[in-house]
């Protein structure tokens, strides 16, 4: 990839920011409608402790939910592929949980866990949305182990444990990693949604900062919190992409072909 192509997104970003800044000043748009980038940066620097703490809080909830989603999704996928009966019994409910918009479940969940435990509602909602791609992808991956290799393991009298550990889990790894990339972003959405729906001062994540700033018509601060949320999402995606590349680069066509 040429240097120009690598730099192209940044150059475009700078141009857009400059046009934004210039346009807002030239047309004298009030800051509560559209603050210039300089005002957003100022809002960010004006209160770095509160926003930083909120960033940390949202990150912590997202990562916890993501970790639980990976552990639960992989474990359930293994159970599903061991027991077709269990799979057919549980699968429809997993789908129901997935297709019901998480936004619509949030109020109910908040009633159950209590508005003073928004963090718990965040964790559960983030887990619900992050869980399904892990379950679906890992199940598919475990089932897609090469039929010839399955025959080979049978020929050598491999135990079920050996088949799982040495054949099925490695076969599922590319699928799992692809699922993790999707789940990472979804976990962040789940963590944000709960705070929005709670809409009270009991939340302390970035989403609450946006709601709070919106109530006060402090648009620059809304943008600042929004920018931090975007950065968080980008960071999660970048880290998971890196993990994917490192894990697959020697052997899997999806990554090895790019070398």
């Amino acid at each position: 990839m040429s240097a120009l192509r690598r730099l192209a997104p940044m150059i475009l970003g700078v141009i857009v920011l400059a046009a934004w800044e210039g346009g807002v000043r030239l047309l004298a748009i009030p800051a509560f409608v559209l603050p210039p980038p300089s005002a957003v940066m100022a809002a960010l620097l004006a209160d770095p402790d509160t926003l930083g703490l909120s960033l940390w809080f949202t990150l912590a909830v997202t990562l916890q939910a993501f970790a639980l989603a990976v552990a639960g999704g992989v474990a359930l996928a293994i159970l599903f592929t061991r027991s077709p009966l269990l799979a057919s019994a549980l699968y429809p409910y997993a789908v129901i949980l997935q297709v019901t918009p998480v936004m619509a479940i949030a109020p109910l969940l908040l009633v159950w866990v209590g508005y003073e435990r928004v963090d718990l509602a965040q964790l559960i909602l983030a887990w619900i949305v992050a869980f399904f791609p892990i379950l679906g992808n890992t199940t598919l991956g475990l089932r897609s182990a090469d039929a010839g290799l399955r025959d080979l393991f049978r020929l050598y009298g491999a135990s079920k444990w050996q088949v799982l550990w040495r054949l099925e889990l490695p076969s599922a790894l590319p699928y799992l990693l692809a699922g993790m990339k999707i789940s990472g972003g979804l976990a962040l959405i789940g963590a944000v949604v709960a705070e929005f729906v709670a809409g009270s001062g009991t939340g302390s994540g970035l989403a609450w900062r946006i709601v709070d700033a919106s109530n006060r018509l402090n648009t620059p601060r809304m943008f600042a919190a929004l920018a931090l949320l975007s950065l968080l999402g980008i960071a999660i995606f970048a880290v998971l992409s890196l993990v994917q590349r490192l894990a697959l680069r020697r052997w899997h066509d999806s990554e090895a072909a790019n070398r």
Partner: protein
Amino acid sequence: MGQGPAPSLEPPFLELRGVSKRYPNGTVALSDISMAVGEGEFLAIVGASGCGKSTILRHVAGLVAPSAGDIRWSRPPAAGGIGMVFQEPTLMPWARIQDNVRLPLDLAKVPRVEADARVAALLAQVGLADFAQAYPRELSGGMKMRASIARALVTRPRLLLMDEPFAALDEITRQKLNDDLLALWGEQCFTVLFVTHSVYEGVYLANRAIVMAPRPGRIHADIPLDLPYPRDEALRTDARYAAACRQVSLALADAMRSPGHSSGETAA
């Protein structure tokens, strides 16, 4: 070389008696297959696609149970007593070549030091010593097949099942692998069942050719190939080789015409 069919009163190394396979959908893959294999034989099973050649191997490997008939051994094979090479190299893409070749030993929980020594020796024998650390995708088709053969031999099996192993390779690579396979067979005295749709390959390698007829899969002819071992390139232009190929080809053509065959097509 001391190899070849050993006529004796002892029970044969491997014997199929009236083996038939009917699948639940009604397809009859094998019909009344009876054959005996002597220890140390190199048996070619020749036939068109869809005539049940591979199904015979899968029965012998114990991957499929026959609907009727039985499979007898002079001594039932222990775990690792049968090696198998498929049409595809069937390597684990996430594992290095040495780890792929060591797999059967790992599954049998052979101590790591002993297993590594055997893997290294075998990789040297098949000419892959320098590629022990490589991943399968970094190897050519022929090299992957060598790794697959090394894996099949790493347990020192008494029987090697080969299911059109070289069908996907180019002619030059295939002939080289044929020669190397014969050399390994000469050294290690295992028995080979070699499935192929190539008459020329089967005759070049084997001391006996079983010609299969399709739909349902059955044995049409059992032809001894009295060509001397060791065999090399010179054999390919030998008149006796040409005569043997002609004999097997005629039997194969005859098999395609034989009753029980529903159409003139060979494709499956």
